[in-house]
């Protein structure tokens, strides 16, 4: 930390630095802390958001805790969270495969290829899965099951385990329509589950393993599996822990993807209702806002508790963890034993130097090397499938689509794109405006606040810092109901400003956190030299921090932009006027229309994805640098 302690009595020399943190504090105070407080307050009321407001004490909580539906929603969330942990494995596998590629160029190509399909907005992927993969009569999932014969296996299993006739010959399973399958669909979608963020994080960590470590391992005769277990895995364990916590928490508090896949009511029989979705439904459909606030509070409490628990359980420094791994107490090695060991080693070397063993191991290594590329290409093929379908279908008429959805069929219909442009363009413009504004505001305010936190330790700065850290754990969505109410009181409902301000406020948390680390890592004597040169705090920010923080600002900026672009739950609730919708909500509306024109629809999806894909491809170098340099340091 560059900072030094400033005491209250020195404050007269340094008071200006507080100006740096005020915008951030105002934003988070107004849009994050006020709704949270208001949520706590209203959770004690029977409240419909308008005319009815009656103090009921703990009644909301009591009826909530007795409600099976509520606990069911947590069961669903935990189930999905557990599966999402399993779904982390492919990303790890892919990262190791890419990392093991000898040629730097191949590594670069693979990395780029992986990023492209993975940055398609989540909503678009969900919508594509909904219409192409889960569809009962001609969906690809069912076709895959039939053509591979897996369906027969499943129907036998069905009979054997008595699943109740989910898979009955001659009857296509309706993935999204069957209450018994909807959860499976929620787990399966997005196969092969290779998130670009996870791959890039793992890769960045792996790249820090020096070549000499591998050379030493080769000399020691370490095989590829042991290399993975003993060298690579321990090194990326830190980022795996972080991602694990992140993934579980994200799933528990998520509402968007389930909403997009299964609808507002959590699919057939409400089987896929997650807590946040339950809350939204209570608030905006059943108008029980007080009750919904109580749901939000409990969600917050559970998420924070879970986070504490997870970090405690997974802390590798914990004594229990270590003692389990610690070897048994060493025992004196007798001469006979050591002779035996020597003998064994000699025999091993003899065996290894035999021509048969050598040729076998060479073949093995060759197969492995081939497998590495094969694995990557197989995963890539699956990953590109949604993108491929999107592009191919976008040139078809409905007739062509129903005849052969996945094949390229002439004639092409580029006019679909013109039609999509007409449908989507105004909302794309809205989204560009919103996301750009959110990004710019977030970066400006967060950088100033980061300077405040990193540069000097001022009175109260610890207090403010903790206020931001707490927000990192708080699920924003839990405050949705009081936030909605606040926006209404501020007359911001149905305005782009609402989305921009809330976006910038929630962006502060991550932005300040990452940028503070970066600003604190700038060598302290640069600031001191500037101070001696006569630079005020503002001049230090402008002349020292800003010119140095290009890459990290780029990284945080891209992430903010993407997050703002992909956000659809808040706009769905806040926006009415369809000329002001962001593009994601527009896509959701288009997908909900009864009569679908697949060509223009897919072209619209593509139009909504292209800006993000371009942004990522062009900023990836920067992004990777940012990840390796600062962002994942914590």
């Amino acid at each position: 930390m560059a900072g030094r302690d400033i005491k209250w009595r020195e404050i007269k020399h340094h008071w200006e630095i507080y100006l740096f943190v005020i915008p951030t504090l105002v934003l988070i105070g107004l849009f994050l802390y006020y709704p949270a407080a208001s949520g706590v307050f209203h959770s004690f009321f029977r409240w419909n958001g308008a005319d009815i407001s009656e103090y009921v004490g703990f009644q909301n909580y009591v009826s909530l805790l007795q409600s099976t539906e509520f606990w069911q929603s947590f069961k669903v969330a935990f189930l999905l969270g557990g599966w999402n942990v399993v779904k982390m494995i492919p990303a790890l596998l892919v990262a190791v495969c890419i990392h093991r590629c000898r040629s730097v160029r191949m590594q670069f190509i693979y990395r780029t290829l992986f990023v492209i399909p993975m940055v398609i907005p989540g909503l678009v992927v969900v919508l594509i899965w909904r219409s192409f993969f889960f569809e009962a009569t001609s969906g690809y999932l069912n076709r895959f099951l039939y053509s591979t014969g897996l369906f027969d296996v499943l129907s036998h299993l069905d009979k054997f385990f008595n699943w109740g006739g989910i898979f009955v010959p001659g009857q296509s399973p309706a993935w999204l329509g069957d209450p018994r399958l909807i959860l499976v669909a929620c787990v399966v979608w997005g196969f092969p589950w290779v998130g670009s963020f996870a791959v890039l994080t793992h890769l960045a960590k792996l790249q820090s393993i020096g070549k000499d470590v591998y050379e030493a391992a080769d000399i020691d005769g370490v095989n590829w599996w042991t290399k993975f277990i003993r060298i690579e895995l321990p090194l990326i364990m830190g980022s795996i822990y972080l991602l694990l916590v992140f993934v579980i928490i994200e799933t528990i508090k998520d509402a968007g993807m389930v909403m997009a896949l299964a609808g507002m009511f959590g699919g057939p029989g409400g089987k896929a209702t997650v807590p946040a979705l339950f809350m939204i439904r209570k608030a905006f459909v059943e108008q029980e806002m007080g009750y919904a606030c109580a749901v939000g509070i409990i969600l917050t409490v559970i998420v924070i508790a879970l986070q504490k628990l997870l970090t405690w359980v997974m802390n590798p420094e914990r004594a229990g963890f270590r003692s389990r791994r610690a070897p048994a107490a060493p025992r004196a090695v007798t001469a006979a034993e050591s002779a035996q060991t020597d003998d064994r080693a000699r025999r091993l070397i003899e065996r290894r130097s035999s021509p048969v063993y050598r040729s076998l191991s060479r073949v093995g290594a060759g197969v492995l090397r081939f497998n590495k590329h094969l694995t990557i290409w197989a995963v890539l093929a699956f990953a590109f499938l949604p993108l491929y379908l999107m592009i191919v279908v976008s040139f078809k008429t409905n007739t062509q689509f129903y005849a052969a959805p996945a094949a390229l069929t002439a004639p092409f219909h580029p006019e679909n794109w013109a039609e999509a442009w007409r449908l989507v363009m105004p909302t794309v413009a809205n989204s560009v405006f919103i996301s750009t504004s959110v990004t710019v505001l977030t970066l400006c305010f967060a950088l100033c606040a980061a300077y405040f936190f990193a540069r000097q330790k001022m009175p109260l700065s610890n207090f403010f810092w903790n206020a931001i850290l707490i927000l990192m754990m708080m699920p924003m969505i839990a405050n949705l109901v009081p936030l909605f109410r606040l926006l209404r009181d501020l007359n911001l409902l149905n305005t782009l400003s609402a989305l921009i301000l809330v976006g910038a406020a929630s962006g502060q948390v991550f932005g300040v956190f990452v940028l503070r680390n970066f600003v604190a890592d700038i060598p302290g004597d640069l600031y001191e030299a500037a101070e001696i040169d006569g630079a005020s705090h503002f001049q230090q920010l402008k002349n020292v921090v800003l010119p140095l923080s290009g890459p990290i600002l780029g990284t945080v900026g891209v992430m903010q932009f993407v997050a703002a672009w992909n956000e659809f739950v808040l706009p769905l609730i806040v926006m009415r006027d369809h000329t002001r919708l962001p593009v994601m909500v527009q896509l959701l509306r288009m997908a909900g229309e009864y009569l679908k024109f697949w060509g223009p629809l897919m072209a619209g999806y593509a139009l909504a994805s292209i800006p993000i894909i371009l942004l990522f491809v062009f900023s990836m170098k920067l992004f990777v640098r940012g990840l390796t340099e600062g962002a994942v340091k914590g």
Partner: protein
Amino acid sequence: MARVILEHVNKIYPGNVKAVDDFNLEIKDGEFVVLVGPSGCGKSTTLRMVAGLEEISGGIIKIGDRVVNDVPPKDRDITMVFQNYALYPHMTVRENMAFGLKLRKFPKKEIESRVQEAARILGIGELLERRPKALSGGQRQRVAVGRAIVRKPAVFLFDEPLSNLDAKMRVQMRVEISRLHSQLGTTMIYVTHDQVEAMTMGQRIVVMKDGLIQQVADPISLYDGPANRFVAGFIGMPPMNVFEGHIRGGQGNLTFEGVGGLRLPVPDKYKAALAAYRDKPVTLGLRPEDIGSAAAEQLAGDPRIRAVVEVVEPMGSESYIYFRLADTTFISRVDAHRKFKVGDTSEPAVFIDKAHFFDPQTNRRID
């Protein structure tokens, strides 16, 4: 230009850690003072308090005739050269040097002429458009000095400016900074942990340890009359040899007797002082060049130490001979052409007039 006065200056860190303890020093106008000591001795903290980068816990610091305790760094009329150069990585050399003047709203012409002048003095005229990344360590250090020069401050502060350079560059920059001082005649305070830098550059040297001043003196007085065992061991390379022993004998023929049959007569100038230590422990200090050197050998009749040669380190112009005497070792610095064989017993002469005696309890010099 100005003198710098520190009166009873203290720095206390949280947890009652005294980094600097009652520091008193008056630095004359135009003087080159070096603060030297091992890491953690408080030398950098003292310098940073003069700069205003560190709050003063107690005492008074004056630059010129002004008390600067509450004056921010930019208004103290000082500049500082940092160990890591602290050049702004995104600015060219010219911009780096001009930055302080620009913030002070100097006219463009004046800035340009000052930058040119500094570049000329330091010989970095052709580097002005480069970024720090494209410079070598020595060049970066020169730019850092240039940035300080253009400000024409009353006091220059140097915080270990040569520690990041390689050995050869360090010697060269040492000379250049000394030359700069004689050219500019500005007051300079220089912090280093390297006693060679301190000896070669300082007009006066302040030796510090654990936040306390050990001794303030010019280089030669420091070398010839270290005030305590710490200074004796810190200044000089290889360090001074120390022997533990007792003062024996009667009036007039006091001797120092140590382990391994070591017996050395006490020189006349110490007799009065050491009389009080008869039959009491004292520490004897002998510099390596005062054992077995040509000067010592030439003075016939001088006492000798009988010891075994353990290691011979030829340095070219001279050799360091490591002797073993009972359970202690000592080093002698001799002409490179004198032959010593490892394992042999030898009897190097001792230039006893140059010996130093210390009280083992207080570690102070006995005079």
